[in-house]
């Protein structure tokens, strides 16, 4: 088994590398020189040519953002699924993403007077903190709704998610109705999702959050494995369940909120990636957590590269692609469920 995991890890990494190199070279803009050469000349001269600008200021931050976002959404999905003991508990389905979107949209519409006063980095921090609060509130609400006597009712969990998403949709719709044009455009972006606005500031901020969050989440494999036995049983094994729950909920909200604040709603990644991995490794979270990060990065990087290149010179919203990839998997989960019910 160990060997098998190592093989998977290595092969995922190789795929990620190949995807990364391909993504570097693909795009609306064709480079005159090799990527290596462009970077070298830039560091020598310290001034941008058109080549180096596209590469260093547009394409590389975007690729890094895709990798970080994919990894973050997947590991959050995996942890939440472990916590709720259900494969359907992904950030977008239970409404956390919508909560983050709502708060981000509110910040943009009502905070615009303050936002303009802030330098970019602080503006980004404010936006992600608000999205985090939104994610945390919905998460808390959904969790309280769905849990009684230490048992989570998956039906209530999903329906609360539906309710939150509907409410968020309504409020966001209302904001679009009352807001002025520039702000409105910012809101429509949330529902489609796009990595086009990535820059180094955003990448830095997301990197810090995702790195710290993932390091914490990666240590939760054992507890999540124990949780599969049931909460009481896990507690008898000596794990502090309540603390773990709080920790996972807060970290996942923070990561999802931060990612959503900059890239809008990118659905299905947190659902599909853990599900595919569970096919291969069953539900061993020690393996699922790290592998889901790598596979999530691969999936989102490929999706983003396709979204950038399929309709050159325009761009397809990435949410469309992840939904096309994700919806069939979602349906297959439902079919599996149905079989189990018989």
């Amino acid at each position, binding site marked *: 088994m160990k060997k098998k995991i190592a093989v998977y890890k290595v092969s995922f990494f190789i795929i990620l590398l190949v995807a990364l190199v391909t993504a570097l070279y693909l795009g609306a803009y064709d480079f005159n020189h090799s990527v290596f050469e462009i970077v070298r000349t830039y560091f020598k001269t310290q001034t941008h040519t058109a080549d180096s600008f596209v590469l260093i200021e547009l394409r590389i931050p975007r690729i890094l953002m895709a990798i970080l976002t994919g990894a973050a959404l997947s590991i959050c999905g995996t942890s939440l699924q472990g916590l709720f003991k259900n494969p359907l508990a992904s950030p977008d389905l239970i409404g956390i993403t919508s909560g983050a979107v709502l708060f981000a949209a509110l910040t943009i519409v009502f905070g615009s007077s303050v936002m303009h006063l802030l*330098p970019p980095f602080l503006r980004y921090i404010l936006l992600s903190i608000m999205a985090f609060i939104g994610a945390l509130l919905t998460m808390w609400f959904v969790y309280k709704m769905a849990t009684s006597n230490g048992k989570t009712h998956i039906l209530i969990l999903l329906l609360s998610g539906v309710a939150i998403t509907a409410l968020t949709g309504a409020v966001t719709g209302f904001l679009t109705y009352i807001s002025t044009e520039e702000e409105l455009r910012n809101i429509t972006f949330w529902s489609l999702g796009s990595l*086009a606005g990535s820059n180094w500031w955003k990448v830095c901020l997301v990197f810090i959050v995702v790195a710290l969050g993932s390091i914490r989440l990666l240590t939760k494999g054992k507890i999540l494995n124990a949780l599969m036995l049931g909460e009481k049983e896990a507690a008898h094994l000596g794990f502090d369940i309540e603390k773990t729950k709080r920790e996972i909920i807060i970290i996942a909200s923070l990561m999802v909120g931060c990612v959503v604040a900059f890239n809008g709603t990118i659905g299905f990644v947190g659902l599909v990636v853990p599900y595919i991995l569970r096919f291969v490794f069953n539900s061993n979270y020690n393996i699922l957590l790290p592998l889901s990060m790598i596979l999530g990065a691969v999936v989102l990087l490929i999706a983003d590269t396709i979204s950038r290149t399929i309709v050159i010179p*325009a761009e397809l919203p990435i949410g469309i692609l992840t939904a096309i990839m994700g919806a069939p998997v979602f349906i297959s989960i439902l079919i599996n469920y149905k079989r189990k019910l018989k």
Partner: protein
Amino acid sequence: MKKILTVLTLALVVASCNKKENTNAITDGPLTETTVIKTDRIISLNGAITETLAALNEAENIVGKDVTSTFPENLMATDLGHVRSITAESILALQPSVVIGTSKDINPNLNDQLKKANISLIMIDQEYSVEGTKNLITSIATKLKKDNYQPLLDNISTKIATVKPFDKKPKILFIYARGAGNLMVAGTGTPLHSMIELAGAENAAAALTDFKPLTPEALLTTNPDVILMFEKGLQSIGGIDGLLKIEGISTTNAGKNKKVVTMDGQFLSGFGPRLGDAVVELHNKIK
């Protein structure tokens, strides 16, 4: 107390940082204006701007355009699609010497990226009025150091001066259609509202602002004498017959008399150098 103080100082620091940025921006302005803008490779991100460029004899220098740039038709430029989905990379791929667009079309992200890429960017505030159109033409021409723009302005003024006021202002309702399920009417603040008023008529939907969904009840209360549409819009709902089938339309004066006027979308709502001609044509069609 300490906390409040820290917060206040932080806010002060932030505010002062920002002030610096602002002053920089102000000093940048005149500098870029004095530098000569090369016009050998132009990207135009607005139909009215493209028309203006063509009227200033710059048509062959346009290398990229957006989806609204439908006139002149024989432009050899790459179509970059809808202005809101255009990315910095596809703009840079055309190696433009200057990008011209309107400030309300271009999203802030793209704006930042282009600025950082050191591309000369001309942003124009487009206003849907005669004055606004003249300003648009004048500012493009002066930015590009062209001095042959006066005839364009005169042409607009003289054409519009020929429009005689109606004895009784007809009530016109503009309907924007993309298929029968998606119908909007144009209220105040839209280019269509200004066009209707310039043509000497009254906007039946003047009680509304911006584009609002069309409802049968609203149709009856506004009761327009003429329905105005884009040519493509009327096609999309199946011509006049399709329009009359829409609930409420046939009970209006316009529906009863089958008084439906169509014009090309960009010509009617573009507010470019052809504004005078468009106003005259609209006026004659609703007579």
